């Protein structure tokens, strides 16, 4: 499922493709065809991708900076920021540890059912976010299996912070594993085996041999995981209960403001999330560039992506 989100380690190859094909008549279109394709595709890009992004910032500042800042400094907005950061701070490390463990088991060892396991890890990507929220309501909700027991012991999961964290963990579950599995499979296990033969412990091997090899892939997975964790809407919306100041994350706060016709404030909070998206894309592009340029293992990484 996540094929399109995995890192394409092709920074170096990308630069020369255009010159390669535009050099000779046999592999080049007539100028009018070229300009037609360029014109249509760039217009499509501008209308469908660029314009919504621009709209967020313009609408956010429509009523001036003062309204903008007061929307962000509002207590409910600040508590939403806090909750969003908390959810991401729990979900990302959990899925990071899982991703490394899963990639180690899958890439370094042979066992039956490996492909099936990879498919299962991908499952959360193919499940609607709404269903991701629903499953936890069925288990922990008032009418759910554990509902009566939880009520007896006064533990709240649904309509409370733990439910939001659980839903966030579910939707961001595959990100790091999906990134590391092909990368570590392509790298093989010779380097680790050599380290062990030379007397390194398992942990030392991982720390000094494996980790440097996978650091860019790891960072890439973490960035995407974090962006989704902070931006998730559907799944969190189902389990949150929308209690202002308590169970509202940033995307839910945007929805509440919007539904109350406080458009400028809604877009102001939305612009924070849009900034997060732009930072994510910048770091992602930088990682692709770093990973694609000249490191000895970059070739293996390219093969892993293809």
């Amino acid at each position, binding site marked *: 499922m996540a094929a399109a989100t995995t890192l394409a380690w092709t920074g170096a190859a990308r630069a020369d493709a255009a010159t390669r094909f535009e050099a000779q008549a046999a592999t080049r279109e007539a100028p009018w065809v070229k300009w037609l394709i360029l014109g249509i595709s760039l217009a499509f890009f501008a209308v469908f991708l660029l314009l919504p992004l621009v709209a967020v910032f313009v609408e956010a500042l429509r009523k001036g900076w003062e309204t903008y800042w007061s929307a962000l400094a509002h207590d409910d907005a600040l508590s939403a920021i806090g909750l969003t950061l908390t959810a991401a701070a729990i979900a990302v490390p959990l899925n990071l540890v899982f991703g490394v463990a899963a990639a180690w088991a899958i890439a370094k060892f042979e066992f039956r059912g490996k492909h099936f396991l990879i498919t299962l890890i991908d499952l959360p990507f193919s499940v609607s976010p709404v269903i991701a929220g629903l499953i936890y309501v069925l288990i922990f909700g008032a009418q759910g299996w554990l509902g009566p027991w939880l009520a007896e012991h006064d533990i709240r999961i649904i309509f409370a912070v733990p439910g939001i964290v659980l839903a966030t963990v579910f939707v961001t579950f595959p990100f790091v594993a999906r990134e590391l599995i092909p990368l570590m499979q392509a790298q093989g296990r010779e380097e680790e085996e050599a380290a062990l033969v030379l007397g390194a412990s398992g942990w030392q091997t991982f720390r000094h041999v494996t980790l440097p090899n996978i650091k860019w892939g790891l960072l890439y997975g973490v960035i995407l995981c974090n962006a989704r964790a902070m931006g998730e809407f559907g799944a969190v919306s189902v389990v949150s209960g929308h209690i202002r100041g308590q169970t509202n994350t940033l995307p839910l706060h945007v929805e509440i403001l919007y539904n109350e016709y406080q458009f400028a404030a809604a877009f102001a909070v939305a612009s924070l*999330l849009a900034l997060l998206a732009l930072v994510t894309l910048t770091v992602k592009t930088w990682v692709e560039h770093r990973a694609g340029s000249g490191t000895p293992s970059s070739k293996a990484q390219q093969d892993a992506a293809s």
Partner: protein
Amino acid sequence: MSASRTFRVLPGFRLTLGYTLAYLSLIVLLPLGAVFLKTATLSLAEFWTVVSAPRVVATYKLSFGMSLAAAAINAVFGLMLAWALVRYAFPGKHLIDALIDLPFALPTAVAGIALTALYAKNGWLGQYLEPQGIQVAFRPLGVLIALVFIGLPFVVRTVQPILEDLDTELEEAAASLGAHRWQTFRHVILPVLLPALLTGFALAFARAVGEYGSVIFIAGNIPMVSEITPLMIITKLEQYDYTGATAIAVVMLVVSFALLLLINSLQAWTASSGKTGTGRDR
């Protein structure tokens, strides 16, 4: 390979695999199983009544119909964008390349309200479309536009690497044998791209079917007109109709699993045709 099964040099197999399986079961498999267990409390007739109610069927038609249309639009324009990004040099190319992934990075709720600001009756584009009789917001067309936004990178990012790996020799050979540029594209390039294009199409479709955040704002959620299936689940939940919500979720999950299997085989096909058909490393 088989030797390592009997003698493993590297440590940590039991630990990491055990942890992987335990965490996977706890977070994903057991909760998903709960959906099917909950549905089992319904009789078949009750299940059928819920999932075939006219209002619910209308949401299937809208969700699946618009997802198909959006994936098709993305297949065409995504291919053109990937082509432009790989084959042509133009200013701002790297910036545009990076921004293609915006729908992955931008929270869906943000996309939803931004699209509504553009296409609402008095919106940036809506004010010009409305007098022409084109209503976007609160209509199926609005759903379509949100799904096009959300699905575009899937097509571009699956087609782009295959285009980059294409050999110039293939096209040179076609040209030297007298093929026009269009014939070369139609008979030489397109067959190589087809598995990737279909994969991108399927990925965009699968994502669109389950999409919620970017759609609900622009859709306006009018029953029988612009309600999507995921919203139906939420509506049932808000009425405390847990079994009803679960029954619809089962329908969606079955479709998602079928799509996942289809996508897996498409990706296997992409990988194998990528190796035999093209590749500079041969």
